[in-house]
Every structure is written in structure tokens, then in C-alpha cells.
């Protein structure tokens, strides 16, 4: 079942190319929904254990996949948000065949990233997910997309290269027979080599987190992507750095992560505050949300780097659910753009006519700035609480960004949706048809997991305990 879940979207993506135009929406939606359904079935069945066969025996590459704990949570969220993205793309984009196909192809890459239990397989899926992201930007982007594309590709490929090197290094120095995670943990790298390899791995993950100062591709990537926000949803899901660090970084480089903890936590806290502060100045909705997402990623990194149990649980919780509300916010911006023809934050008075759109956007913003009772809070609060136990001052610095978050979110919301409507502005329609679902479902998820966190905690908590127990003494 797990293999079906991983590769079904890719099959669907290929199938779309051979499907007549009028059925493409339905086929894509069906495949995405089926993937989500499979994910839920796996969840009900208690997750999927490690499945392992040799892939390239000569190189020691195996095909090992598993979906449990954190990876299952993230895979479910990915399947869910891909479904939402497909739903919106089908409605918004005329002749969406290519876009839908790319979304589904990317979904396979992302699910593979979360399922992979072999470092080289992880790397392969990592690159697989990159191609559709690049293509989406290249095909559907805005006029300055080439700049953004080059930057995105350059950062990511450079990071991947370092990751590949350190992956090979881990196997070579540790003397493991294969690249499978279990074998690598059995044969750890010791001493200074571990630190250097960790730095290489870290560089790749810092690009994908992203973490200051390797974040510059992110705002451009989102700014130049298609107005509908569908590629942005997938781009948000692609921010897998936090997961990679947790699933591979901590078990493989325990001493190095312990050693570098204060520096990395400082970097993460700084990223959180820095991004939130810059977001305050943005006048482009997509850039703004990109920086907001960057700030969240600072929190995720803070949680993972702190090696504190509560903080790490919070980081994974935040990582999973920020996809939901950040993605939905991108789609809300897409709807705004469809109505007023601009993603500028100085429109004014949109809410006088589009009450539901404004209300939903506001609620999603509240989720994003971690108002308690919504999913963002559980993660952010746990991260800060855990980080405070380790480094009080850094937690304080990161905590400052909660104030900045209120400032940037409410300022942009106010100047777009509140205040007076410009004279002679176009009449704005409220939410229609599937748009209700596209924003409503993520919001419902955000509320549910903000109030009742047990289903997600039951998955995340044991996994985090397992990983941190492997570090010893933490």
C-alpha cells in the first residue's frame, strides 16, 4: 500500500498526459483524493513498517521505505494539501493539464522524501521533487521568473551536491555496507569527520529549511510563481529541511548536533526574528507570506536544534501544520488576485464585499501567527517552551518575532481587506463553489488540530522520543 501511495500520483501525472482535456480535472482530483485516502488507510493501520529491497547492490543503494510517526504525519499533510492544490488549480487555471500533472509528479517526490529510509533514495526523491517545482516556475511564472528560477536552482542544486557528498562520506567513513538509514546508524562516523559531514548535510538542509543566510531564493521563488498560488503550496510543502535534519541529521550526527547546538539555535532564532521583521515591510502578498513562512521555519529549526523533547515535538507539529495554513494563505492570495487583479497589499476595503474571503484569510492569518486554539500555537508554544529550557535568551529573541508577526500580518490584512474601498474599484465577488472547500478544509484542519492535538501528537511524540533517545542522555 505504501508503494502505491508513493507512486500513485506519478502514475496519475503520466495518465493525465493521455487523458482527454475534459476529463483531466476529474482524473487529477480522483488520483489526489485516492492518495489521501490511502494515506488515511495506512494511518488507521498504524503506519507502514520499513520495507527494504536492494536497488543497486553494487553501490549499496537500497529501496527502503517506511511511513510512521513524523513521516506519516508529514505525508498525510502533503497528500491533503496536494489535494487542495489540485482542487483549486482545476477551478482557477484554464486548461490546467500541465499544472495538475506537475503537481501530482511533485507529490510523488515529496511523499518519497518522507518515506525514504535510505539516504541515497532520499536524495533521489529530493531531486525528483525539484524538477516539477522548476518546471512550474518556468512554465507558469511571471516575467522575472528566469532570475528566480536560476537562483532557486542554483541554491538547491548546490545544497544537494553538498548533501550527496556528505551522504557518500557518511557511508565511506562509517564503513556501512549500504546507504540504508538503519545500517548507517549501526556504523556511525566518529570524531571530527562527523562534524564536517554534518556541516555538509546541514548546508543542504539549511537551503531547504530555509535558514538565514541561505534563504534568498525563497521570496523570489514565491513572488515569481503563478498568481493562483498553487505552485506556492507545493513549494511550501517542499520546505523539508526540518524533516531531513530530524530524521537523518540527528541520528547520524549526534555528537556534532550536540556540539553545534548553541550556534545553530542562535542562527535559527535570528532567522525567525529577521524574517518576521522584514515581512513587515513587504507590499507584495506572496513575498510577505514567504517571509512569514521563513519565520516559521526559524522556529522549526530552533526546535530541532535544541534537542529538547518538547521543542522537537513542537517543531515537527509546526512543520506539519504550517503547510496547511501557509498553503491555504497562498491560495487565498490567489483568490484575491483573481478578484482585484493584484497581489499588492494596499488594495483596501475588499472585505466590505467579500466578507467570507476576508474572514477566512483573517482566520488563517491567526493560525499563522500562532493564536492559541489554532494549530500554529501548539507547535510554536512547544518550541519556545522547550528552547527556553535550553537557551532562555535565544527563546526570548525568537519570541520577539511573535510580536512582529502580529504587526506584519495585521498590517497587510488591514490595508487590503479593511479600510476604505478606493472609489471606482471593481466589484469584488465573494467565495464561490469549490473555493469554500479550498479555504474551508485547511481552516477546519487548523482549528481541529489546534484544539484536539492528540491524533497528531500520538504519531509525533513516540517518534521524537525514539530519535532523541538514540542521542543518549537527552
Amino acid at each position, binding site marked *: 500500500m505504501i508503494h502505491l501511495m508513493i507512486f500513485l500520483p506519478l502514475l496519475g501525472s503520466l495518465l493525465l498526459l493521455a487523458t482527454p482535456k475534459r476529463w483531466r480535472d476529474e482524473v487529477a482530483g480522483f488520483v489526489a483524493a485516492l492518495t489521501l485516502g490511502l494515506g488515511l488507510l495506512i494511518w488507521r493501520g498504524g503506519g507502514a513498517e520499513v520495507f527494504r529491497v536492494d536497488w543497486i547492490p553494487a553501490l549499496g543503494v537500497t529501496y527502503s521505505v517506511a511511513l510512521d510517526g513524523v513521516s506519516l504525519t508529514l505525508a498525510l499533510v502533503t497528500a491533503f494539501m496536494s489535494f487542495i492544490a489540485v482542487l483549486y488549480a482545476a477551478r482557477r487555471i484554464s486548461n490546467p493539464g500541465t499544472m495538475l500533472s506537475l503537481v501530482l509528479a511533485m507529490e510523488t517526490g515529496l511523499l518519497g522524501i518522507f518515506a525514504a529510509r535510505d539516504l541515497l533514495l532520499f536524495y533521489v526523491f529530493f531531486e525528483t521533487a525539484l524538477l516539477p517545482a522548476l518546471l512550474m516556475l518556468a512554465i507558469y511564472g511571471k516575467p522575472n521568473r528566469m532570475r528566480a528560477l*536560476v*537562483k532557486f536552482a*542554483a541554491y538547491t542544486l548546490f545544497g544537494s551536491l553538498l548533501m550527496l557528498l556528505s551522504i557518500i562520506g557518511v557511508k565511506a567513513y562509517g564503513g556501512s555496507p549500504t546507504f540504508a538509514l538503519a545500517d548507517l546508524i549501526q556504523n556511525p562516523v566518529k570524531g571530527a569527520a562527523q562534524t564536517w559531514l554534518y556541516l555538509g548535510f546541514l548546508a543542504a538542509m539549511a537551503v531547504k529549511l530555509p535558514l538565514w*543566510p541561505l534563504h*534568498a531564493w525563497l*521570496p*523570489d521563488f514565491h513572488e515569481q510563481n503563478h498568481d493562483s498560488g498553487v505552485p506556492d503550496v507545493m513549494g511550501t510543502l517542499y520546505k523539508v529541511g526540518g524533516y531531513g535534519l530530524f530524521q537523518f541529521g540527528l541520528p547520524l550526527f549526534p555528537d556534532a548536533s550536540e556540539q553545534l547546538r548553541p550556534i545553530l539555535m542562535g542562527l535559527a532564532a535570528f532567522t525567525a526574528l*529577521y524574517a518576521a*521583521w*522584514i515581512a*513587515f*515591510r*513587504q507590499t507584495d502578498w506572496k513575498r510577505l507570506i514567504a517571509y512569514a513562512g521563513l519565520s516559521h521555519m526559524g522556529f522549526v529549526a530552533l526546535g530541532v536544534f535544541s534537542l529538547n*523533547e*518538547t521543542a522537537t*515535538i*513542537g517543531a515537527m*507539529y509546526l512543520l506539519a501544520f504550517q503547510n496547511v495554513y501557509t498553503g491555504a494563505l497562498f491560495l487565498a492570495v490567489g483568490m484575491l488576485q483573481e478578484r482585484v487583479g493584484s497581489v499588492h497589499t494596499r488594495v483596501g*476595503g475588499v*472585505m*466590505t464585499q467579500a*466578507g467570507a474571503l476576508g*474572514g477566512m484569510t483573517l482566520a488563517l492569518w*491567526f493560525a499563522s501567527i500562532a*493564536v*492559541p*486554539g489554532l494549530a500554529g*500555537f*501548539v507547535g510554536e*508554544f*512547544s518550541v*519556545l*517552551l522547550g528552547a*527556553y*529550557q535550553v537557551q*532562555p535568551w535565544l*527563546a*526570548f529573541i525568537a*519570541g*520577539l518575532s*511573535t*510580536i512582529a508577526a*502580529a*504587526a506584519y500580518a*495585521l*498590517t497587510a490584512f*488591514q490595508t487590503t*481587506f*479593511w*479600510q*476604505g*474601498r478606493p*472609489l471606482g474599484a471593481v466589484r469584488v465577488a465573494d467565495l464561490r463553489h469549490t473555493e469554500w472547500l479550498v479555504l474551508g478544509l485547511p481552516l477546519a484542519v487548523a482549528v481541529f488540530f489546534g484544539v*484536539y*492535538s*492528540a491524533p497528531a*501528537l500520538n504519531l509525533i*511524540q513516540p517518534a521524537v522520543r525514539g530519535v532523541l533517545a538514540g542521542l543518549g542522555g537527552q
Partner: protein
Amino acid sequence: MPLYLLPLFPLIGFALLILFPRLFPGRAAGWLGSATVLASFVVAGARYLGQTDTPAHEVLWTWLPNMALNANLSAGFYLDQLSALMALIITGVGFLIHVYSVSYMGHDPKFTRFFAFMNFFVAMMLILVLADSYPLMFVGWEGVGTASYLLIGFWFSGRNSEASDKDLRGASDREGVANSNAARKAFIMNRIGDLGFMLGMFLLFKLYGTLSIPELAARVPGAQVATAGIELACLFLLVGAIGKSGQLPLTTWLPDAMAGPTPVSALIHAATMVTAGVYLITRSHFLYDLAPVASTWVAWVGGLTALYGALSALNQHDIKKILAYSTVSQLGYMFMAVGLHAYSAGVFHLLTHAFFKALLFLSAGAVIHALHEEQDVRAMGGMRKFMPFTHIAALMGVLAISGIPIWSGFFSKDAILAAAYTSSPLLYVVGLGVALLTAFYMGRWYFLVWRGEYRGHVPHPHEADGLIKVPLGILAALATLGGFLNVPAFLGGGHAFDAYLGRAIPVHLHEIPAATEWLLTLLAVAAGVGGLLWALAEHRRRSLADGPLGQISSNALYLDRVYDGLIGAPSRAIAEGLDVVDRGVDGTLAGIARTSAAPGGLFSLWQSGFVRAYAVSMLLGTALILGYWAIKTIGGGA
């Protein structure tokens, strides 16, 4: 009846009203909203009557990871005397204000949404006071902040945003910007406080390993923890309380919050939400009892804020702004009381203040309504003739807040001043001075609005309708008689309120000789009467419109401008600078990319695009390889 019903009813009301607004035509939404709050009031009343000395603790489900003692923290509700009292105030006063709003907001196009938000507020406030752990309290804490944000910005585009008249629309746009800014300011300033609250929780978790309030209360007295840690945690919590209750230095959002509809000002920014800070400190009494320095800070923050609010209220011209600064000032009294560990006095003042300040706001609202949204007291006067019932109600409120005997404010303020006298004479002097100022600015408010000749523009203002009168009447009765709940011993009373609250919160009874106590009471009454007489004298001289301190008071001691210059402008500038730098980081890296791409340019020259040139290079290449092999073979053979 389970406790979760209390917040559940208004939450259901909120969900129905926000999701299916079309189901509620006309005033149905208002009645539904009021009914849910009434249902909660009934539950609160039933629980109050069935209360025993052991607090009720009802756990619902697990919520946050690892935040209780060696376990995940659960969401649950906790009912002791303090939270029962708060729940009664919130649902009781809340219900009256809901009923009032049915009439007051009756003509607003967003009538349904208004009641949805009001219900949301009540639910969150109930979660705040019933929470069994600090994080759950924080849910209510930020929830009420969110509700407050939504309601302050209720008229976010101004009230005539779709008007075709150009001037009207321009004014409406300006109003929209002002309302939105006020809402945002309230939220951000609250967030500053919230960060303090969060840090307090983090530190408490570090010290004691749990955030559940009953567990903490059981652990704190026995635990071996450095006093400095407790002091710091208490100071952090104080920052949170300051933000929510509009105390110095985070006070400037509260007067601006008057941009919201008047019932909102009455419920959120006078009676309930802003008192959450007092509640937080009272709830954390087991910590503050161990932290003398932090408690002194609380008391002085309260004392200074009381003074600041009173001075700022002296020369305001907006009928609601006067009351807003008065609220700031009265909240300062409550902080002073809880800072001096006189929790019962503070909470009692909270109770009476909820009555009389809600009453004053609602009667101000009735006046504003009658004068078609006029809020400037200089364009009022003589309203006594037009609105006799409201006038009497407002008069009760003025007498209560001024501390005139038998009215409720007299008893509660007296208790605070007595507590201040025993602990800190300096604070007592401040408190007494503020009492004088309070009586004066409330007298000024009363004379400018109700007495003298009519200066308004509306030809014939009308008395309020029945739906407005009923809540006014009930609140007036409560404001008048509420004080008898806690008659002190020297006046022949039994401290009934202290005894009730004492079952949950320790009451430190101060030992003052009866004679001294009489003297203190006389002084307090003299201050109140003196203030009112002073206002009357000014009124006779017709110089009341320009209060003392002039511009300084009108601009609220220029605190807003100081903040903007000191914090607002620099933060914006830094954001601007960082943005440039961030794009610069970009530029630097792009430069590196260009440089490293340069060798690639050389190779691209080779890609001439001429097929024949490629063929030549293939030929040359083949020749080269063949030549190499030939030479190698020949060399090998030789």
C-alpha cells in the same frame, strides 16, 4: 452540569452565527446571541449554588506535549470561588450588554456578525477564567484579544463606506483607517504582554516542571526554588497582565479601543477583558505571596497607572474617552490592591467596577445614539430633560465611581485605600489623590453631558427604548447596592464577600483600629465629595469644558507620541533597512553567480549554431583521437 457547557453555549452561538448568517433574519441573531449567554449564566448560577469548599476540576482531553508533571498537559476546567465569581460577572453583565446591543446595534448592516463576535468573546473570556492551566488560560487570553481586535475594528471601512456622497465617504475612509489602526494597535500591544506571559510560563515550567495551576499551587510552597526565579516569573506574568489590562507602560491601546461600538467598550474594555490582568495575578497568588519585590512592582504599576489615567481623563472631550481613561485609572486601583496582596479588595473592586463602568458606558451609548453618533461632550449638555431615565441611571454610576457612601464604589475603593494605608503610606496618598481626581472628572462628565443648556445639533433627542432601559436599570441597581456584599466590620458588616472569596484565595486581614478606619473612610468620602463639588463650581463658572492641565491631559501626557518616536519609527526604519540588506544579500550572491558563470561564456562561444562548424569539430576531434591511437600504436610497436 459540566463546566464545559459554560463556554460551549456561546461557542455554539458563535459558530451558528458566523457560518449560517442567512438563517437569522432581522433581530433573531441578537436574541440567539443573548440566549446562549443567558444559558451560560444559568449554568454558572447553578454551579455557584452547588459549590463546595473543594474546587471542581473537570479534565477534558490531552492537549500539549510534556507540559504537566511527567505527562502531557490536558485541557480542563477548574472552578473555585474566584472563577465562579468571574463566570457570574462575565455571563451576567455580558447578558445585559447583549440585550442592550439588540437595540443599540439594531440598524447596523453587520448585526449578525456583531453578535457572533460578542459570543466568541464571552466564550473565550469564560475559558480564560475557568482554565485549569496557564496555557489554556492563554487560549482565552489571546482569544479575548482576538475578539477585541475584531470588535474594535468592527467598522473597519467606516460606517458610510459605500456612500455616494464624496465628503461622507472621505470621512468614512478616515474613520476606517482610524478604527483599523486602533484594532491593530490593541492586538500588537497585547502581544507584547503575551510574550511576557509566555516567558513567565516557560520559566515556571523550568522551575517546577508543570504548567497546570492546581499542580503548581500544590508544588510551589514546598519546592526548593531560588526566590530570584519566582520573582522573575512573577515579573514576566506582570508584563502579561499589564498588556491585557492597559497598565503603564502598555496603556495607550485602551483609549484608542473606544473606536469599537459602545457595547463593546462596555463589555470588553471596561467590565471583563481588561480585568483579566487582575484575575491572572489573583489566580497566581501562590506565586506572588512568595515574591515581595514583584508584588511591590505590581502595586506601583497600579498606583502610577491610576494617577496617569486620572490625569489624562481631566481634559478629554470625547464622552467615551473620559470613561476609557477612567477605566485605566480604576484598573490601576485593582492592580494596587492585588500588588499589596489584598486580593479580595482588588477582586471586589473588579466586581463593582464591572457594574458601574458598564452602566456608565451603556448610558453614554444611549446618549450617543440619541444625538446621532455625536461623541463630543461640548456638543451635549442638558440631556437630563430629554432622557430622564438614562440620566438617573448615569447619575447612579457617577456616584458609585466617585465613592459616595452607600454606592458600591465607596465600599470597594475604601477597602483598597485601607490596604494601601497599612502597607505603603505613599501609595495611599496617591490613591487618595486619584480618588479626588476621579470624582472631579466624573463630575465634569456628568455636568457637561446632563446639566446646563443643550448645545447639540439634533433637534429633539429621544429617550432610549425599553431594551436599552432594562439593562440600564438592572445595572444601576447593582451599582448602587452591590457594595453591601462586603460591608466592613467597623460599619457593622460581616465581610461577606471576603469570607466567600477567602475559601479560595487567602485573605490577609489588616489590623487597623476602628478609629483610624473611620478617619480613612472620612478622608476618602471627603475626596469624593470634594471632587464633585469642584466640578460643580467649575460648572457654575462655565469653565468646565476646558479641564485642568489643558493640552497635556488631552494628549494623555504625550505617551503615544513618545512611543511612536522611540519604538514605532525606529522599528519601521529597521524593517526598511533589513529589507534592503536582504535584497542586497541577494545581490552579492548574484554577483558570485555571475562571476562563476563567466567561464561558461567561453564555451558558449563554441556553440555557434552552425551545423557545419559542428561537423568540422567532430572531424577534428575524430582525427585527434585517431591520431592519438595511431601514435600510441606506432610508439608501442617501436
